[in-house]
């Protein structure tokens, strides 16, 4: 129990809509965040991830349930009395204060002496790579620098937990990637838990210790990035993270038969010998079948062959009309030449790589 | 203390005193004025506390039991005031609209400088700005002196104490009121839409009527209303530039209060002016609520 820094028990929240109805933002969520963990809340907009973050920071009052931080009940505490700090999406730097004043703010309102404040500000700014920038105004800084000030400001009071609300979404791609690595390093140095909100699955996979995929106010799956990618519990998670080919059908021994007669082989789920299920094959798990291919295959008519640099993306349909996406390494140009001419491809896959989602796991 | 109660106390402290002040000294006087407009005038000034609905009939020209037979003089003044106010709106629009387009396309620095120049007169005395036009328009004023000395006219022209002088004076003092809303709309105008219209084959004139005018209409309507309202009941401009010859609603009301001492009739006239204002405001709120209601009010 003590290895969790945050515990949510049955956290619920509904918002009234202007039309008089209500929307469930949090549907009795249970969540435990471990100490020194980088946890990402991932989901499409409106899935409840920002509401969840604001419930932890105290800007959203729960309709039901409890929030405990480090064993203490925080449910009814105002935001300014919670040991949690936030890096806001648009940084929310105070425009009338200098970088130094912004950074020192949490210490100042806590009544820390001036000399000590200055020392800690210098240390915090150094940590985020902005040493000596105390005198600047926020608007004189670039987006990336403002981002760093927001970080320094949020960590200076050593919160037990740092919340990050899509902090990288306003940065351009290169800067975003650099910041991803820096954030991860910073988290290790500080030794505190980060809860990071994003709608960018790439970001979630690269940075997190664990990812919580949210939809409709519920946590669909909470696991390590690899587990979520390889073994999604339902088709929402499978489609939200990465590209996927999903085949709905019934299990019959070591094969899955879809309604339109396609047959997918697998090596999973000996326990459920029959029943409805969905088979997942990631595009990169397909390869072009050779002569006398030992692996099971799927014949597709190609609609488009797109060159994206390291790979070719093949967009095709099975004879039953089901859409299939495959990713083929671009190294073997001769094979591509063949299929470009015939507009047909025989795709092979390893049955061991096929993941089965059972119907009962669907939300 | 619970959060809800604390919020209530804060709200009461913030809004209580000022609400009381406005209720007593703003709504109160308006209510008393409304009551007064339904009272009978005393013979030598003052008010008789009896219900007397004839003040409004008198404005429309009907005979009233005390003063006169059918006489449309007041309704004529009312119509004339509306006409002058409407012409002022039109003239101010003609003055400001093209300039707004020119200024909106300047660089940021020049834009700000031009806006500064336009708002600057607003910060100077209204009466001084009107006095300037007396010096220019009167018989021995600048225009007449110049025309006489060049020999273009033999006798001075009657420029001052005319409807035209009043409209000129009002346009002059209300320029910022018209310019700012119009400019607001013009600056927001998306020029790619204009280019799209031209690209789709509409000529410049059709593009103006179908694209530019409708898109800048909110500013035009807003400017028209905030110029029309003070123009309708204006009393300073006619008093200075209209002389005794041109009577407008504002002067008529002043006369009823300070000279004729018929307060109920003056109140009834003021009620007319106020209802026109409320009517225009309602129209504006209604129109603007149909496209993004709060944007208009929250500005």
């Amino acid at each position, binding site marked *: 129990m003590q290895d969790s820094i945050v515990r949510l028990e049955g956290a619920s929240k509904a918002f009234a809509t202007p039309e008089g109805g209500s929307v469930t933002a949090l549907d009795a969520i249970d969540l435990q965040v471990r100490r020194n963990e980088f946890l990402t809340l991932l989901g499409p907009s409106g899935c409840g991830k920002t509401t969840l973050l604001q419930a932890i920071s*105290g*800007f959203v009052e729960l309709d039901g349930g409890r929030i405990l931080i480090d064993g203490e009940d925080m449910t009814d505490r*105002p*935001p*300014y009395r919670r040991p949690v700090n*936030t890096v*806001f*999406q*648009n940084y*929310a*730097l*105070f425009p*009338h204060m200098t970088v130094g004043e912004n950074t020192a703010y*949490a210490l100042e*309102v806590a009544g820390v002496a001036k000399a000590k404040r200055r020392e800690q500000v210098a240390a915090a700014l150094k940590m985020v790579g902005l040493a000596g920038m105390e005198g600047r105004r926020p608007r004189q800084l670039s987006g990336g620098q403002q981002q760093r000030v927001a970080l320094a400001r*949020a960590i200076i009071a050593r919160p037990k937990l740092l919340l990050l609300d899509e902090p990288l979404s306003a940065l351009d791609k290169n800067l975003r990637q650099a910041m991803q690595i820096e954030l991860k390093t910073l988290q290790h140095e500080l030794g505190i838990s980060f809860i990071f909100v994003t709608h960018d699955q790439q970001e979630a996979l690269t940075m997190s210790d664990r990812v919580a995929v949210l939809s409709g106010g519920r946590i669909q799956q909470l696991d390590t990035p690899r587990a979520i990618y390889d073994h999604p519990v339902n088709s929402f998670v499978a489609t939200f993270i990465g590209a996927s080919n999903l085949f709905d059908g019934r299990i019959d021994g070591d094969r899955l038969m879809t309604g339109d007669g396609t047959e997918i082989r697998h090596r999973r789920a000996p326990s459920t010998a029959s029943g409805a299920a969905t088979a997942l094959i990631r595009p990169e798990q397909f390869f072009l079948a050779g002569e006398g291919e030992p692996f099971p295959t799927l014949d597709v008519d190609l609609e488009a062959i797109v060159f994206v640099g390291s790979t070719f993306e093949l967009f095709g349909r099975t004879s039953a009309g089901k859409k299939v996406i495959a990713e083929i390494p671009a190294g073997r140009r001769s094979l591509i030449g063949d299929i470009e001419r015939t507009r047909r491809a025989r795709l092979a896959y390893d049955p061991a790589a096929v993941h089965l989602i059972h119907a009962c796991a669907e939300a | 203390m619970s959060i809800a109660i604390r919020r209530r106390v*804060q709200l009461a402290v*913030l*809004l209580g*005193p*000022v609400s009381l*002040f*406005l209720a007593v*000294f*703003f709504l*109160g006087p*308006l209510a008393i*004025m409304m009551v007064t407009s339904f009272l009978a005038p005393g013979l030598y000034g003052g008010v008789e506390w009896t219900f007397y609905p004839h003040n409004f009939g008198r404005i429309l020209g009907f005979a009233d039991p005390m003063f006169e037979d059918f006489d449309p003089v007041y309704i004529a003044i009312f119509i004339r005031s509306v006409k002058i106010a409407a012409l002022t709106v039109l003239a101010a629009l003609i003055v*400001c609209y*093209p*300039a707004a387009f*020119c200024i909106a396309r300047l660089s940021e620095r020049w834009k700000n400088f031009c806006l500064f120049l*336009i708002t600057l007169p607003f910060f*100077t*005395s209204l*009466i*001084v*700005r009107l*006095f*300037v036009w*007396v010096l*220019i328009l*009167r018989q*021995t*004023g600048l225009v007449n*002196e110049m025309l006489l000395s060049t020999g273009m006219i033999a006798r001075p022209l009657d420029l001052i104490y005319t409807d035209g002088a009043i409209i000129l004076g009002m346009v002059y003092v209300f320029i910022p009121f018209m310019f700012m809303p119009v400019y607001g709309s013009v600056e927001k105008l998306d020029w790619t839409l204009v280019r799209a219209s031209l690209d789709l084959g509409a000529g410049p004139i059709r593009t103006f009527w179908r694209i530019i005018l409708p898109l800048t209409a909110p500013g035009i309507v807003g400017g028209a209303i905030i110029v029309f*309202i003070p123009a309708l*009941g204006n*009393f300073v401009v006619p*008093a200075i530039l209209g002389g005794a010859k041109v009577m407008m609603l504002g002067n008529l*009301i002043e006369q009823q209060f300070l000279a004729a001492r018929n*307060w109920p009739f003056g109140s009834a006239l*003021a009620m007319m*002016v*106020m209802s026109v*204002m409320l009517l225009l*405001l309602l129209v504006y*709120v209604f129109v603007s609520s149909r496209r993004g209601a709060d944007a208009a*009010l*929250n500005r």
Partner: protein
Amino acid sequence: MKIAQSLFRGSLVAYTGLFFAFIYIPLVVIAVYSFNSNPVNMMTWTGFTTEWYAQVLGFKTTVSENALYIESTGQLLQAVWNSLVIATSTTLIATVFGTAIAIGLYRFDFLGQRFYRVIMFMPMLMPDIVLGIALLIFFVNSGIHLGLMTIIIGQCTFLISYVFIVVSARLAGMDRTLENASADLGADEWTTFRRVVLPQLLPGIVGGALLAFIISMDDLVITYFIAGVDVTTLPMFIFAMLRRGIKPEINAIAVMMLTFSFVVASLGLYLRSRQK
């Protein structure tokens, strides 16, 4: 096509030039002619003099040796003083009230809030003559003696509106997440207000106060009705002079007022532009 376009552009620029000429040439004209020595026909130039300024300021000169205007200089100064007293008091009251209402309506959601907002626009839009006579009837009926006090109260009713609108605009442009950031960093409500909201609001409050001061100094109509017999303000003084007849001294007063307000307004706008 090209020629038509540049012709159109050119005429638009010319039109805008005329637009500014229309605004400023009259002001330049009276500034120049306020130094005209012709005492009767003010627009016929007969020579340069500072005589009229000297008279307004109460200096004895060769022309005004018989000191016809000394008395009115005293009245003028009294009117200026009255205007300053009124403007200072109304600015203080209207700024506090207007700011309070703006913050109240911004910060809290309550029933009738929209209605309240509309009501707050009414005093500003109310034609001044209507408000003037309504206040007159009210004060006379309630037996309050007309004077400085009634002027201050009367002006406040609509000046509150102006301050409210300026401060509200500033509040509407404020980033609400800054308050969340402050709370998140451990500041309670009062600290957040003092350290985050107020400093950002200050330009709006100062702007509203400046506007209230200027409008109060300039108000003629409402003041005219509720001033009573004892008190004269600067606009009332000039209005009365104008009604009696036009003399060169009015010109000098007008130019001095123009200069003063131009300097103050320029300074105000300069300070604001530096703050940005």
